[in-house]
């Protein structure tokens, strides 16, 4: 299988002020290695502050890296690209545009003509089941609907790498579970490469082909777990013996890192 993304020895540090107000260097990624395969659903799981979102931001062209190499489709990562799409935890919908106009923005950036844009936007709106909300404004929708619009907005311009930064973290538990199944349904239809960052072990296992577990402070991948659950996956997968077994394994790996992240947070 081809590598979609190859990150080699990537390092990233930020200038921060510590609790004493002195300048300090916070290393978020330290010689970080990760391969993402073409067409896979890969989740990155790790405690807060482990650098998983930073890596996503770097891939999205929103942040720089200090050292190392990142290849996307065998080419050096470009700062500006039409091939990737990012879904944010806070939806990032434009409040002055209707749902339909929000869906069009990526196409507008690609200078696609208005009529064609409308058509594509309507198709994707139908896909997420929100056709009747076309002319509503984002603030008139629920959190789950907003995130569906945000996902459809990215899918509409057909990027070949999807980056999702804790997209469901702001949703209530039930909406979150519905959204996970919905995302699976959408993804299984065309299998674009997805890099998904989350805090939730269950979410990572249910969705992914592989789950990369990160260390708390050294900013590296501790271990990658293969998820061999059958596809297409449904709600039932959560109850299976295999799911529980993988969950235990993942928790075993993550436990120490979470404790370490907490003790680190206390020290700072």
């Amino acid at each position: 299988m081809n590598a979609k993304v190859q990150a080699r020895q990537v390092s990233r540090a930020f200038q921060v002020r510590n609790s004493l107000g002195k300048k300090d260097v916070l290393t978020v990624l330290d010689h970080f290695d990760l391969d993402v395969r073409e067409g896979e659903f890969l989740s990155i799981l790790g405690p807060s502050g482990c650098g998983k979102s930073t890596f996503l931001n770097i891939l999205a062209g929103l942040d720089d890296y200090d050292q190392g190499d990142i290849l996307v489709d065998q080419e050096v990562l470009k700062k500006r690209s039409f091939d990737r799409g990012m879904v944010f935890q806070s939806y990032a919908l434009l409040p002055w545009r209707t749902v339909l106009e929000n869906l069009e923005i990526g196409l507008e950036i690609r200078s696609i003509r208005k009529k064609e844009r409308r058509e594509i936007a309507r198709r994707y709106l139908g896909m997420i089941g929100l056709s009747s909300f076309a002319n509503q404004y984002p603030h008139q929708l629920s959190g789950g609907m907003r995130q569906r619009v945000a996902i459809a907005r990215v899918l509409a311009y057909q990027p070949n790498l999807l980056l999702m930064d804790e997209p469901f973290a702001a949703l209530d538990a039930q909406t979150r579970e519905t959204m996970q199944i919905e995302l699976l349904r959408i993804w299984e239809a065309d299998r674009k490469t997805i890099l998904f960052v989350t805090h939730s072990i269950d979410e990572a296992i249910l969705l992914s082909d592989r789950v990369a577990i990160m260390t708390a402070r050294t900013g590296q991948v501790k271990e990658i777990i293969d998820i061999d659950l059958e596809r297409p996956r449904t709600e039932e997968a959560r109850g299976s013996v295999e799911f529980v077994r993988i969950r235990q394994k993942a928790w075993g790996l993550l436990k120490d890192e979470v404790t370490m992240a907490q003790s680190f947070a206390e020290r700072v």
Partner: protein
Amino acid sequence: MASFMKAASGLGNLLLRGVGLLLFLLLWEAAPRLGWVGSAYMSPPSMVFRAIWLLAARGELARHFLVSLQRVLLGLLISVAVGVSFGLFLGYFRSLERYLDLLFQAFRQMSAFALFPVFILLFGLGELSKTIIIFWASLWPVLLNTSSGVRNVDRVLIQSARSMGASRTFIFCRIVLPAAAPEIFTGIRLGASYCVMAVVAAEMIGANAGLGYLVLYSQETFNIPEMYGGIVSLAILGLGLNCALYSIEKFFTSWKQDIRVGE
């Protein structure tokens, strides 16, 4: 029926909002008539409105009104052009703002009226110094609101557009500008009300027309009802301008309207 009910409740609403104004007018009418204050200094509104009517009939009201309106609009137009473009520039290049912020805050506090003698020294008593005082008064709220509007744009909106591959120009025109629009409009409306204040001062020195001139001239010739007539006309000018700007703002930021109702 429904539309009739709506119209009726709209009328009722207007009446309710007018209660304060009505009470004030009654009190104003009563005060000089009952001898609480000398009628030489305070004309009752009935006389004031009569004076306005006579002024209008002579065509003088329209002349003064239009002269003032023209001065206000000219000053406001220039300050919007300068303030918005410079404000956008400042907000976009944040590092610049850091060096200039204190200077601008000081300028904002510097009264246009205090500077009027300076403008007269530099530009004479003509229209130029009048336009400049109006421009100065309204420039700062427009400029500072615009730059703060640009600075306050939700970063994640910009990041999201960037992750889609948007160019800087696209981000500026399609994300930053519309996101900052409500704050820019607030600045313009604030600036407009400062314009109306400044035009009065400008017309009290070296003018022969305009509502400010009318107020001062009537006072000097002891035509007290006309003086109050001029003051009332100025209030109407300010209200009308604010109303017009509010409609323009509503047109451009219509998406915001139902947020107040909905959330």
